[in-house]
């Protein structure tokens, strides 16, 4: 230990603060700053969109103008100036690429830093990656393999061009543009995202995955994801994100819609590690996301999320259990440190008979952060024999942070069985003592205990993600011991 000087430590901490904080210098094409009908028309024409989509955008924009920003969440942040955002930024179109070699070397370097080298991904993890960088899909892999099975997986704009009938049929049916302020904004200005369609009876042989990245400064990112699993199909979808260090707050307002038709199953996993702001709470991403899935008969939707990033998170992945015997699941780990604020949870709407839902939420708050669980379980009058189990635990580190639980339980049917339990406490000193006694220092002990605490959720993640998520938990909590 003698050689390790304070200077070295300082240096290490400086560089470690946010491991993925860097800006890649790629020429970007930007629309003028601000939001107006003209900008929307511009986005639409840039993307060569059909008329119905432009009209949809404009309707959404007009609806958005009449809406107010929601203020009920337990978060506090300087308001976003929506006229101070670039709504369209795309890497300049380059010639069509057929192999990895042709991809911009700068881009490849960036993925290397992120540890998601496409090469490796392709060979080792059997993951098809649709990489979204600043709103435009750059490269899609494994498309051929998927195409053979009839699976459509690609960028949203491609889907608009190639499968307009599917997009038109399903887009906005689960999250209509009138749903909320940010959903309306997204519907008006979304630039790209992912689209996935699994045909009848097909089990998708690999994990589908999208990496999001916000790169250009001051660029609001407005993705739109639509996953449709036709009857009897199965898909596991991964979404993970890191973003570079920036001083100004960046807005992210995505919309994710999942549709599981009869007997279908969708597993949607997210690892979110956007820039959380620095130790003084300066900067960081605003993450205002609307995620919702619809289950038809015997269908199942499972949300798993590991949330460690963003300055402000406002996110409630939900399930509408419309069909009889449908199942909804929500597994979440949310870690907040320094000045992060998270208000996250889920909604389980039981409409059909014999519907089941499970909610496991694990919150960890450290530093001066605020971490809230907010969830709704609603059993409709006709939802006979509905069943829900919810567990929301919070772990507190230090007395500057807060952990809050706001469950809403609404039951209109007597045959329902609804259970909710929540606990809040700190890491037991006896547990840490035990680890110390076995030669594990306190910092490692905390990592160990937090990982154990979050195990119920981490276990639900696909393998590749589980490893990444564990590392993320450890990184997020660095320096929180004291």
């Amino acid at each position, binding site marked *: 230990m003698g050689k390790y000087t304070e200077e070295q430590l300082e240096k290490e901490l400086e560089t470690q603060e946010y491991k993925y904080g860097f800006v890649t210098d790629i020429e970007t094409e930007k629309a003028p700053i601000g939001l107006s009908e003209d900008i929307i028309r511009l986005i639409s024409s840039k993307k060569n969109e059909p008329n119905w989509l432009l009209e949809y955008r404009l309707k959404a924009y007009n609806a958005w103008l009449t809406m107010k920003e929601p203020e*009920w969440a*337990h978060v506090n942040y300087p308001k976003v100036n929506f006229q101070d955002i670039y709504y369209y930024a795309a890497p300049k179109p380059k010639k069509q690429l057929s192999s990895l070699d042709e991809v911009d070397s700068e881009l490849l370097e960036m993925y290397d830093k992120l540890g998601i080298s496409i090469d490796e991904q392709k060979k080792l993890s059997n993951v098809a990656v649709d990489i979204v960088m600043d709103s435009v899909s750059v490269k899609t892999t494994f498309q051929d393999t998927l195409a053979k099975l009839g699976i459509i997986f690609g960028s949203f704009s491609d889907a608009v061009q190639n499968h307009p009938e599917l997009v038109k049929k399903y887009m906005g049916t689960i999250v209509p543009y009138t749903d909320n302020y940010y959903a309306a904004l997204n519907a008006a200005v979304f630039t790209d995202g992912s689209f996935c369609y699994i045909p009848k009876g097909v089990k998708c042989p690999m994990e589908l995955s999208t990496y999001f990245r916000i790169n250009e400064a001051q660029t609001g990112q407005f993705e739109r994801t639509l996953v449709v699993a036709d009857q009897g199909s199965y898909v596991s979808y991964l979404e993970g994100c890191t973003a570079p260090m920036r001083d100004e707050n960046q807005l992210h307002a995505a919309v994710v819609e999942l549709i599981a038709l009869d007997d279908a199953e969708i597993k949607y996993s997210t690892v979110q590690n956007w820039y959380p702001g620095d130790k003084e709470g300066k900067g960081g991403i605003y993450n205002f996301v609307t995620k919702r899935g619809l289950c038809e008969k015997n269908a199942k939707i499972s949300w798993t999320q590991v949330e460690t990033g963003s300055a402000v998170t406002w996110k409630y992945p939900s399930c509408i259990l419309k069909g009889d015997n449908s199942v909804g699941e929500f597994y979440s780990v949310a870690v907040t440190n320094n000045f992060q604020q998270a208000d996250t949870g889920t909604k389980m709407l039981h409409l059909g008979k014999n519907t089941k839902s499970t909610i496991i939420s694990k919150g960890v708050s450290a530093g001066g952060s605020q971490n809230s669980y907010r969830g709704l379980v609603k*059993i409709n*009058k006709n939802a006979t024999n509905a069943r829900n189990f919810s567990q929301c635990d*919070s772990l*507190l*580190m*230090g*007395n*500057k*942070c*807060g*952990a*809050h*639980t*706001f*469950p*809403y*339980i*609404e*039951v*209109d*049917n*007597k*045959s*329902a*069985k*609804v*259970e*909710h*339990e*929540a*606990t*809040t*406490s*700190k890491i037991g000193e006896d547990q840490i003592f035990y680890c110390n006694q076995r030669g594990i220092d306190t910092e490692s002990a905390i990592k160990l205990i937090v990982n154990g605490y979050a195990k119920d959720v981490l276990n639900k993640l696909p393998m590749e993600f589980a490893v990444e998520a564990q590392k993320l938990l450890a990184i997020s909590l660095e320096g929180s011991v004291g």
Partner: protein
Amino acid sequence: MLEDKKQTFLANFVAKTADKDSSLAKQEALKALENLEFPTTREEYWKYTRVGKITNANYSQSPSFNVSDISRYLVEGLEAYIVVFVNGFFSEELSDISKAKGITICPIAKARKEYVDQFEQYFGGLSKHESQFFSAVNTVYNTNGVYLNIQKNSLVDKPIHMINLTDAENAAYNPRNLFVVEENAEVTIINSYETVSGSSFTNSTTEIYVKEGANVDSYILQNQSETSNQVNEIDVVQKANSTYTANTVTLNGGLVRNNYNIEVKGQGCETNLYGLYLTSGNQHIDNHTIVDHIEPNCESNEVYIGVMDDASTAVFNGKVFVRSEAQKTNAYQQNKNMLLTDNASAYSKPELEIYADDVKCSHGSTTGQVDEEAIFYLQTRGVSEVSARKMMIRAFANEILDNIKIDALRDILESKIDERFS
């Protein structure tokens, strides 16, 4: 137009406030009322409860009353100091407080004149008259109520039973109570609300100061007619090493809303909130509680249990705050609901807001129906289905009834519940 509705509603009360009250709280409330509107379901605090039943009614203004026999409203077999209010007005002939020792007990209107210093010191110190519409209305238009001061180190020998009766058609009244329990004093207070005849709107506000080491055991029994509505605010502040226990039993009523606001402002305190609500018909019972832990080393327990029949609705919203200074707090909160029909609804919102780390806090909420397997088991043992159901419901409710320390009161409640489900 809304403004007109508010003025019409407030006009119901003007004529009755004969007493001169120049308190600061009243001035504040008057000012607040200029801006406060009827609560709506758009407000989080009133999300599940519509107050139209209360605000759309026209109230008559008849202070006269014809009650002469209150025996059926007493707790049988319980010796107590009795304070009776009818339609919001103190009835000296029906009350029995003459021999009370170590305590000062009188109508609040009298206290306003005779105990000016205490009144100034305590009145309006806790009530939410600046933010809550009904609390403001009460603070401005309160008709009467009880002023209670328990002297230092005194143990009150008998429970104090306050009986609130109404016997008029469309009576509206604002009872206002102020209880000051001095250091190391102990007292048991029962507050019962019953309808003799007719229908009423009771808008009650009670402020309770629990000083160092004091122990307050309080009971609220709500058993009004189905056409009677009630908003009941109870504001409590606890000082170090004190114990405050509230048992709220709601057997009947049209729309009932209870708001408990408890500030735990001293170390070593214990707070217990127990609630039982049985709803039927179209009743709507809403229990809101806030326990605010400001100082370390305190404990709070909260259990609310409800059985909902017919097309009735029950709402529970419990909120526990643990401030960053309040280390070593233990807070428990539980809500259990049993639905007897598909038309009944239960809305439960147990909330925790925690800013300190060395705490143990938990909450739970369950909603379900009578366990059919248990019913079947009892039937195999020769118990009829009806009795089996009654037994199950009683067992469910007993978790609250068991906390009642006054035997006579518990017996009465038990028999009332049995009667209801037979």
